[in-house]
């Protein structure tokens, strides 16, 4: 099965052609981790190794970084920008946003400070200094 993807790793945006072949000859439409050793993925069009990794991830388990901002409870009219430390599963984006929306931060905050621990395998960290 072939897929056309656009790499999102860097602004270059390579067009990737991905061919997924299942060893048992079937042409399954669904991808998940359970198939781990039963397929081969051939990536074409990438200009760097990161592109290949992105294409494989995108076929097996697409991931994204979520960025947002949170209210600072002890500062007037102030938000602190945050992001997920590592990429999280694409389908967990909205769930993550819910946690972010319902959390308040107390200043001072430093860049890199963990604000929510252990959420879908990663942390939410601050990306802005608030004095």
């Amino acid at each position, binding site marked *: 099965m072939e897929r056309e993807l656009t*790499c999102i790793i860097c*602004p270059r*945006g390579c067009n990737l052609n991905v061919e997924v072949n299942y060893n048992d000859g079937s042409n399954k439409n669904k991808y998940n981790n359970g198939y781990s050793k039963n397929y081969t993925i051939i990536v074409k069009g990438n200009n760097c190794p990161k592109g290949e990794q992105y294409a494989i991830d995108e076929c097996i388990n697409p991931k994204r970084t979520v960025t947002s901002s949170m209210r600072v409870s002890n500062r007037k009219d102030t*938000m602190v*920008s945050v*992001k997920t430390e590592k990429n999280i599963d*694409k389908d967990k984006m909205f769930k993550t946003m819910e946690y972010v929306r319902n959390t308040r931060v107390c200043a001072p905050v430093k860049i890199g400070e963990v604000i929510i621990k252990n959420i879908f395998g990663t942390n939410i960290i601050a*990306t802005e200094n608030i004095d």
Partner: protein
Amino acid sequence: MIDGTDKTKNKDKENFYEYTKKESYQQEKVENENMEIEKELYTEHNKEYDIEHDIVVIGAGPAGMAAAISAFDNNVKDVVIIEREEKPGGILKQCIHNGFGLHKLGRELTGPEYAAYYEKMVNERNIKIYCGTMVIDITKNKIITVQNKDGIFKIKAKALILAMGCRERSRGALNIPGTRPSGIFSAGTAQKLINCKGYSVGKKVVILGSGDIGLIMARRLSLEGAKVEAVCEIMPYSVGLKRNITQCLKDFNIPLYLSTTVAEIHGSGRLEGVTIAKVDENRNIIEETKKYIPCDTLLLSVGLIPENELTKNAGISIDNFTNGAIVDENRQTEQSGIFACGNVLQVHDLVDYVSDEAEIAGKGAADYVLNKLNGQIIIKTVPGNGVRYVLPQRINLIYEYNKNREDYKREISLFFRVTKPFGKIKYTVKLGDKVLNTAIRLKASPGEMEKITIKANDLEKISNKDEKITVNLEELS
């Protein structure tokens, strides 16, 4: 001898005494005194400036900060930055999404992180940033009038770096017919309201313009729970980065309508809906394709305009295509000692390139202060077939007379944009008929800035001083 001198002195004294008795002298004396007083007053109140600095940078965004750092590192230590907002960082403060710094720093940062990285470097060098300070005027003599809570004062700079950035085009520039309800925002304003102030701008959103800010906002609004009904783009292609189309639109199943615009705005009080319609190749609305979309918010992401009011005050001419100043390869404008970089010079798609450009301008300004810039011959660069503009617009041949300088063999980068999307193409840079460099690209889009380098010593062999450097594009099959 002594007697003789005394006599003459006495004689002079007598003459002088008689002269002072005359009416004309009395009058003259009064006039002279008045003039003295006037002169004193004049110097007191019309002093040309209050403070002096070697280099003054206007704007503490990514361009301003990088330029100041670069100037400092190139041996001019008296550098100050003037910023009108309360915090440095410029537009990066509201760009909380990631994707910054991959080219420049080799890692992926969010906007505030990228700004903090540069702010830290500025602080390490003890470069002063005057926040909450607005520049009202600049002159070609590099006297800057600024205003803040302490009042109005004037700064004299040896070199001036303009890094004011750009602003968004507004609804007024588009002439969309219809009513004037609330709920129409420029994308950047909505971005600031949501990310920095924590407001919600609307629930059902249509976005006009598929530039990067529009695409980023489509994702941001979706994540915040709003429904983005459509992104409309008047051109037959999107001008945004491809990866943003994937991660901002496709991820959230937001439709992108190309060759489509907002034909009418409906609603009184709050926006109730918009009529979208297809356009033909001359961008005229095709009546039959009109379609009504109910929505309460319209975001406009329809282009950025470099903020060049101050530049014009200093008598610097503006390029019609970049809407920024005309500069040479050191980013020096027509007025010697005034430099420009960042989005005030040309609208960039990546902040990494802004930082690169600012470093050139910062080094240029430092070299100017240290009397290292002495351009002699100016060669113009012109866009050729398929190219919209080339920056820098002119190149100074300054190293002609001292070939022993190590940077004699330096490379000059030419930045340009193509007129429309192309497949496989070949760029050729020519000086007259002589080919200076060529490059092959698999694709090119007007949304992505292209770069090609030429060698300065190739320009030495210039035979005719009216010869121009052209960048041409050739389609390959």
